[in-house]
């Protein structure tokens, strides 16, 4: 039997059958105790759990029975972030969760081929939270809709939940490399090479955008308690929100979209990726399944979705000219063979082009800094952009290094060279990208599973640098960077950026 995941907005109604069955399945899972492996909270804790936070949010009673130590060690706090395992681990998490919901659905007389819908917030008129999740009531008016979550505050912390499309993008789909570089260059489509990584430092392309931002924008934060996140905003609570699974079904779908270009977009071939972290001495990916069994899987098991009998109703690529082709036409209009340039191996040499001085505190409505450029590296970039040969010109990446803070719900946009008195919103061509600080709270703790270095985010600013080059202003000594939060950042969030740097990746 095959399973097809479909667009939640195209099922035939707000409470179309697949949504109604999902709600019934969620209700069944929520009825189970914390120590039941197929229960809602047990599954949320597999993604991550902070017991203090769960108690404050009302999801944990300190007196209730906990699972045994062995189960906690084997299953809980398993989500993979800042890692090339991000996509495959979450694919397995979706499949196992879906199997548990489907088991409940079929026991209630529902369809045996039930599959999770996905939320494609990129489509016109689909950026709003699916209505079934926004109402506290079932369609018959009863008020215990299990898809509704009170702690879902939205981008303005006012309970109006949607994804502002200006804050998300699909730029990661243009990256032909799955595995990225942790040293300042492209973090790749899928992430950087790590072992078991329950919260790595450098987030990969598709993880940064749209994944992280959607988490922060949907979850938001409690307007009455600045550092209390909405469930979706923090990895330690995200799995408790029923919309989490539709968001991740969309991220998983985007992996399939990326793989649609079979000549270049290939999953890693390294045995460490194929065999998973257990092959390098770390924890295995292991999840509870219906019927009292557990499932241990590896990324190599899940790379090909068709072998799992799964598919999506839509894996068409974004419309428009592929980014690299468009770039080559823009930079070298006389070059005719640009269409195939994507299949050229991307250059791997990464070096620092410039950096700001000192750390930057982000609070209030914005923060500004200057990134000083090294003239000798600047010349290399200029030479690469003006070269006549049909080689791939340098790509340029802005790094926000050692981002620390106490509030995962923080989201902000990064603008380049907006005039001092200019309104950034009026300069969309200067937008480097937007970032959500999903996971920053735990990554900032010195004595936890991180060393307290915070997170590092990488934004490709090649398009901005190309514009500077074409305008003849790339030889400036500095680049001005402006960070503009989606909503003012409270002091209590303690958000700081250790260093803002720019790297070139080329030959």
């Amino acid at each position, binding site marked *: 039997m095959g399973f097809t995941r479909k667009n939640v907005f195209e099922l035939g109604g707000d409470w179309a059958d697949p949504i109604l069955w999902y709600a019934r399945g969620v209700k069944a899972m929520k009825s189970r105790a914390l120590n039941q492996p197929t229960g809602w909270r047990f599954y949320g804790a597999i993604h991550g759990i902070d017991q203090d936070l769960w108690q404050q949010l009302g999801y944990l009673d300190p007196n209730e029975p906990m699972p045994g130590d062995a189960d906690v060690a084997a299953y809980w706090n398993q989500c993979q972030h800042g890692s090339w395992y991000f996509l495959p681990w979450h694919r397995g998490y979706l499949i196992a969760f879906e199997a548990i919901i489907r088991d409940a659905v079929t026991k209630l007389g529902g369809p045996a081929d039930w599959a999770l819908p996905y939320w494609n917030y990129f489509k016109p008129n689909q950026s709003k939270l699916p209505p079934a999740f926004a109402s506290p009531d079932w369609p018959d008016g009863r008020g215990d809709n299990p898809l509704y979550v009170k702690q879902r505050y939205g981008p303005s912390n006012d309970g109006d939940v949607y994804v502002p499309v200006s804050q998300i993008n699909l730029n990661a789909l243009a990256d032909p490399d799955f595995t990225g570089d942790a040293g300042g260059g492209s973090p790749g489509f899928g992430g950087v090479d790590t072992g078991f990584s329950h919260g790595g430092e450098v987030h990969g392309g598709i993880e940064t955008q749209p994944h992280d931002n959607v988490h922060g924008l949907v979850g938001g934060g409690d307007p009455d308690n600045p550092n209390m996140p909405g469930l979706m905003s923090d990895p330690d609570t995200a799995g408790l929100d029923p919309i989490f699974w539709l968001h991740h079904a969309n991220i998983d779908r985007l992996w399939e979209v990326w793989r649609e270009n079979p000549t270049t977009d290939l*999953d890693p071939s390294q045995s460490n990726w194929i065999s998973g972290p257990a092959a390098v*001495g770390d924890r295995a990916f292991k999840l509870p399944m219906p019927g009292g069994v557990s499932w241990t899987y590896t990324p190599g*098991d899940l790379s090909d979705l068709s072998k799992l009998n799964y598919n999506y109703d839509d894996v068409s690529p974004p419309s428009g000219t592929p980014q690299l082709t468009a770039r080559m036409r823009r930079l070298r209009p006389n070059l005719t063979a640009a269409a195939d340039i994507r299949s050229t191996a991307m250059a791997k040499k990464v070096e620092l082009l410039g950096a700001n001085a000192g750390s930057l505190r982000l609070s209030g409505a914005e923060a500004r800094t200057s990134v000083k450029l090294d003239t000798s*590296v600047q010349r290399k970039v200029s030479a690469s952009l003006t070269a006549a040969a049909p080689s791939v010109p340098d790509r340029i990446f802005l790094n926000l290094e050692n981002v620390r803070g106490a509030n995962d719900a923080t989201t902000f946009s990064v603008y380049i060279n907006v005039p001092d008195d200019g309104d950034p919103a009026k300069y969309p061509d200067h937008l480097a990208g937007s970032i959500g600080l999903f996971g920053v709270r735990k990554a900032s703790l010195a004595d936890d599973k991180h*060393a307290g270095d915070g997170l590092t985010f990488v934004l490709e600013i090649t398009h901005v640098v190309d514009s500077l080059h074409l305008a003849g202003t790339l030889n400036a000594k500095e680049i001005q960077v402006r960070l503009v939060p989606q909503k003012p950042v409270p002091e209590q969030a303690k958000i700081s950026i250790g260093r803002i740097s720019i790297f070139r990746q080329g030959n």
Partner: protein
Amino acid sequence: MRPVAHTFEAWLFVLGSASLAAWSMLAFQHGGFSPPALCAAGTWPVTPTAASVGLALDLITPAHLASSSALMVVAMMLPLTVKPLRHVRDRSFASRRARAMLLFIAGYMAVSMAAGAALQTLALAARSGEAATLPCLGLAVVIAVVWQISPAKQWCLNRCHRRPQLAAFGAAADCDALAYGLRNGASCAGACWALMWLSLLVERGHLPAMLAVTLFLMAERLENPAPLAWRWRGPGKALRITMGRCACIWSMTASLRGDNGAVGASGHQAILHLAARSQFASQPQPHHQQDDGDQQPCNRRASASALFGIGHYSGSSPRNS
């Protein structure tokens, strides 16, 4: 799947060569220093006293102490700097990489050598000649074990994993690289001192003891940072990696051994799964009745077809309390 490209990194070669050279010098005792060798014929107190430390310092010159500390640090601790050095290299301008890395090493060596000199002096002072070696060694073992399981050790290890922001330009960049080396060296010395001191006290098999401690420290560094707690810290991850690699090689050489039945077509994967499962072998997974929320009986085999036949399935877990 995309093929993998490996690149040669000269600085890693230099680092490895320096460490190997130091080990060679230690092995041949060319300028090397061994407290056991120096004090074999002396009469010393069981535990270090002010007088014995003073006597130890009279016996060895500062130059001798410095050179022997440098050898010990280069041999044993330089291999631990690969990750922080890569951080310094990656985050510096290409034109400043060598300088920044050397500054890091200078800071790291300065702290480590000072710690090494102190350890060697203490080791010398703690020795009591051949007759009193065992009590002294026993005390050192107790100290090393207590330190190994202490939250303080984890505090140091966590700081060994730090990758701070570094200034990029001018004197600020130099200061940051040097300061990072000093801090990392201090953290590293804090994490390693007890085991290194123990290795200095071993008389017979002194060099193998140092090598064993070095391998242990390198293996220990593979573990991720962790919350502070009293618990055993060992080279578990390194052992699991070794087991997995051995199983892989065993699988790949099955046909050469004519043991075609030992490993099937997917033997590589299967053995990696076995290696993966072995890490849970120490965690009890009792086969008992389970209430999985659906009132399903536990411990029954899952139908592979129901689970797509992908991955590995176990009927013995999860369990409920």
